[in-house]
């Protein structure tokens, strides 16, 4: 069991993978420490949001995930 990070849209391109396992617990600072370069910049952008187990966080810096959680990193949607 771990925290699963899911990269959506262009974040998957920047990460080079569509998902990744991290050891929990994971908070916003821990996430920022984990990511580097353009991927870290994109995740920190205002319009990039975070969902935990399908619930979108109102404030992504309040992230608090534990082993077993799925943390999705959501760049701005382009719509259907």
């Amino acid at each position: 069991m771990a925290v699963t990070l899911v990269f959506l849209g262009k974040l998957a391109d920047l990460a080079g993978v569509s998902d990744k396992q991290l050891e929990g617990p994971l908070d916003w600072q821990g996430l920022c420490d984990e990511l580097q370069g353009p991927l870290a910049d994109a995740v920190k952008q205002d319009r990039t949001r975070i969902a935990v187990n399908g619930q979108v966080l109102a404030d992504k810096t309040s992230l608090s995930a534990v082993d077993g959680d799925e943390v999705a990193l959501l760049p701005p949607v382009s719509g259907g």
Partner: protein
Amino acid sequence: MARDVRLLTQPFNPGQFVGPFTNAHPGLGGVCTFVGEVRGDSGVEALELLHYERLTLPGMEKLADSAIERFDLMGMLIVHRSGVMHVGEPIVLVSAAAKHRREAIEAVDFAMDHLKSDSWFWKREKRADGWHWIEPREQDHDDLARWAQ
């Protein structure tokens, strides 16, 4: 059948959904349907829509529910593609069944504006020089603002 929302990963034929949807609402006054396809202009060879299982379909279901309530519909059908699509393939189908025509037409307008700029899809286009991620157009945000309460 008040709400029928589907996320498909394979090409579909709009008629196969609209006929049964219409027949499922005896007594209706009108059905308005919009079908959006991959446009053939501007050098686009293919389009890819990516979705996120835990948000995309639930988001469309909530949208259908809110249209049904706002426009007093008898039913709403939303069928949306995900995956790689080519020119001429349907991307999205929205149908609204109502007692009166204006409600049906406005509900489709409302649902399409939300789907185009406020649904959980990420889009990229393949052109001669490769794949490009697409951001929402300003026009789409303006369209959406029309429905603010």
